[in-house]
């Protein structure tokens, strides 16, 4: 579990690392910690998986991937895990999850996010997924994003 110092470090860096030659020493200075303590704790949090990685988040739109489809599939429950595994392994699928259905409004249990340079590319990828799902597929849909309303990533809440 995280202690108060871990949380302070995450709060100080979640908006972005300082762009200076010694970013971790800079964060340590902000917080009144030794530089080694900051790197040691970040490294421990990477090992436990609290931090997935320290990296840049590319802006897909700026890079020309302007079509973003949340493809959703109603797949028979008994094969959903196995087939989801195969869909998740496709190179153009960036996130893939099994989620509960919300009947009657929402019959879909497999979600696969597809990015492409245009909608035709996304549609071609949907056809690839359809081929994998075969007879286990009952119905599907695809929701294009028309506007990003917020994108800040996860933030720690409260002061704890």
């Amino acid at each position, binding site marked *: 579990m*995280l202690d108060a110092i871990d949380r302070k470090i995450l709060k100080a860096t979640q908006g*972005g690392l300082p762009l200076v030659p010694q970013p971790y020493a800079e964060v340590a200075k902000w917080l009144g910690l030794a530089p080694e303590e900051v790197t040691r704790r970040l490294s421990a949090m990477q090992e436990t998986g609290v931090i997935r990685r320290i*990296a840049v988040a590319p802006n897909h739109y700026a890079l020309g991937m302007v079509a973003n489809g949340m493809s959703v599939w109603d797949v028979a429950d008994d094969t959903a895990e196995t087939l989801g595994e195969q869909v998740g392994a496709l190179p153009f699928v960036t996130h*893939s999850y099994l989620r509960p259905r919300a009947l009657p409004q929402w019959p879909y249990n497999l979600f696969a996010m597809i990015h492409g340079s245009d909608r035709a590319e996304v549609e071609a990828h949907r056809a690839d997924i359809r081929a994998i799902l075969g007879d286990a597929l009952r119905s599907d849909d695809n929701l294009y994003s028309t506007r*990003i309303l917020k994108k800040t990533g996860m933030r720690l809440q409260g002061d704890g």
Partner: protein
Amino acid sequence: MMMRRQPLAAGVLGPTDRAVLNRLQDGFPLDDQPFATVGAELGLTEQEVIDTVMRLRDLGAITRFGPFLDAAAMGGAFCLCAMAVPEERFEEVVTLVNAHDAVAHNYQRDHALNMWFVLACDRPERITAEADAIEAETGLAVLRFPKLREFFIGFRVTA
């Protein structure tokens, strides 16, 4: 800062920009001078790497540079949520929903369920509290789609 939605013009990103953008999606070293370490791999100076990250940020080619947190590993949770928002109330509801710190991203989508957002909470019990609060504030149902299984997160692109 509003996130850029238009593609950068061809030729805006040079080979150094692309090399740094590709390399830094894979992870950033935890050493004393990490920009120098990355620079050594790419044949760039420490300052060139720093300047390139600033440039990518200013161009809007990246949205963030830092730690990516996993709410579940912290003992918390993520939950995808969806709402069917009447068109005439859309902007009002965006403001109400986005005011919650727990809303990590929010997208408008072309479907009857036209608002899709992710709640990220460091304590799992907060997911229900946040979703319930949004229902109370907006008077609209918040459908909740917690993940049962995650197959792959390979969220990287080749620039």
